[in-house]
């Protein structure tokens, strides 16, 4: 079933859309660079060649140094946050679970800010995402630990606990930023309403390495996640080691969330919008849902970022503002749909 011709053509379509999105997003902006030239520059630069005649130095800089890392970073965290949304919703059997809502992103962001203002991050390029990962993991386990009672996680408690802890970490982030430098307002905006503006290839690498590794490993848990949809007892008795694999899933998801917030701040609701939309299109089987959500998220976030930097140009809207504008109505709709449904993990 999952690897039929239909599935392959689905991936082919999604992959072409992703490629098209990346090129379009690099091409469009305050200064537009024609498609052909974008392709030319990307091809030449990635093969370490000189870009040909007819391409201005400024175009080369815009495409290669400014827009491409930004667009690829948006694609990376869009894919990462979407796949985490899918995992969290199946793991907690809660359609409203998402890294932003459950406080994971805020926890990660706070630790990222701490590592920057203590200088820890300077020692190795992956230290910043790793510290953010530690913060995310800590938050994830605290939220999980508090909302777990006699082996069960109650849905509403989980959500409220996540929102509560998230608020705490946002306050702490604000506090650290406000006592540590003169640019605190701008910095606060960056972390609390995340974005991919002024991001370099280093930032891209910081996010891409952990997100890609963790996402690929998560694909191995597709059937595990399917079985969890039947509830704890049924999942256990079709041979899923629920307790042990929950740990794996939380760690892998935290790695993705940590790496994402470490370079882009909190970009909310992606993990809600994408998984639910993709489920409507292709169904619930995680063998398709995980990869399809990753690619769809990687398409969505660069487009959202394109809107963020073009609609009020030369002013940029924060990417986190755009995703919230789309995501909150989505969240409220889901909340309403699940109203009165008492589900227990």
């Amino acid at each position, binding site marked *: 079933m999952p690897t039929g011709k239909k599935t392959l053509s689905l991936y082919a379509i999604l992959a072409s859309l992703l490629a098209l999105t990346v090129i379009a997003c690099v091409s469009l902006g305050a200064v537009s660079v024609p498609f052909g030239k974008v392709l030319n520059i990307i091809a030449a630069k990635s093969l370490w060649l000189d870009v040909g005649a007819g391409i201005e130095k400024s175009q080369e800089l815009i495409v290669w140094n400014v827009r491409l890392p930004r667009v690829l970073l948006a694609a990376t965290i869009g894919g990462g946050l979407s796949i985490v949304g899918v995992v969290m919703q199946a793991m907690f059997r809660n*359609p409203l679970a998402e890294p932003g809502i459950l406080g994971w992103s805020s926890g990660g962001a706070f630790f990222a800010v701490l590592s920057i203002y203590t200088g820890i991050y300077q020692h190795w390029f992956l230290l910043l995402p790793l510290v953010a990962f530690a913060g995310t993991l800590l938050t994830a386990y605290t939220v999980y630990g508090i909302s777990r009672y006699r082996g069960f996680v109650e849905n509403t408690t989980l959500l409220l606990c996540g929102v509560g802890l998230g608020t705490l970490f946002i306050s702490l982030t604000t506090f650290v930023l406000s006592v540590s430098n003169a640019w605190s307002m701008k910095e606060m905006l960056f972390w609390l309403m995340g974005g991919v503006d002024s991001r370099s290839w280093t930032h891209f690498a910081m996010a891409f390495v952990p997100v890609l590794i963790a996402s690929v490993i998560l694909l191995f848990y597709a059937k595990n996640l399917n079985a969890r*949809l039947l509830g704890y007892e049924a999942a*256990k008795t079709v*041979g899923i080691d629920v307790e042990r694999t929950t740990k794996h899933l939380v760690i892998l998801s935290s790695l993705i969330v940590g790496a994402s917030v470490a370079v882009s701040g909190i970009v909310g609701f992606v993990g809600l919008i994408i998984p639910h939309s993709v489920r409507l299109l292709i169904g*619930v089987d995680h063998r398709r849902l995980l990869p399809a959500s990753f690619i769809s998220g990687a398409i969505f976030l660069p487009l959202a970022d394109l809107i963020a930097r073009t609609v009020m140009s030369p002013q940029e809207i924060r990417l986190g503002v755009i995703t919230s504008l789309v995501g909150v109505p989505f969240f409220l709709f889901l909340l309403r749909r699940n109203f009165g449904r008492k589900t227990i993990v």
Partner: protein
Amino acid sequence: MRKEKQSIKVSGLCYAVTGKTIVADTSFEIEKNEFLGIVGPNGAGKSTLLKLLTRILTPSDGYILIDGEDIFGYDPKELYRKISFLPQISYFDFPLSVLEVVLMGRYPYLGIFASENEDDIKHAENCLSLVDMDGFSQRKVTTLSGGEQQRVSVARVLAQETDFIFLDEPSSHLDIHHKFALMELLSSLAQKGKGIVAVLHDLDLASRFCDKILVLENGRSKGLGKPSQVLSEDILSSVFKIKGSWDPGSGNLSVSL
């Protein structure tokens, strides 16, 4: 493997949580070829016993041997190729298709990246027709009624092809026709060599279809044996607080308050 010991042996089983004993010193044996009904008043520990037998809970004392080997000695997939479980409540919050749900019964047989093949799908379809759900395989479970969802869950358990099947109140959401159909199905599976263990509330139904009955009260066994022997007037009045008698003509149990 030890073919001669295809049974489940329960010995001195205890389960206590926060000081409260729920299952106390229960010992019995479940054999293939038999349909065992577990009955008892609310809070007698029936569901807990079933969860202990399926390794969902860990006993505080005692042991369970499956085919002569301790239940905790099995790797999960290996164990759940021998035993399967139908929980009391099935949760369907996500719009899985009926076929997708039933195919999950094949998971203990599949490797990490393997997918179900044609045989698995055919097998799943057969299981669906056993519970009178032919033609439903592409429907979303979320659009089905409670009873239909229950039958899909039974099909999922059957798809697991285990020697022993444990069911917690399998007939609770079913209409009278499907209630009898399910009990007949379980009884015929037992005749074909499976060991069936079901928690049942309906004593009449249990006495009609089960080969053996286990009566539980306050976590303790009050008797195990043929329905007509175990569900004596004494037990019915002391454990269930009802009057009951066996009709010598039809061999059926009739109960009243």
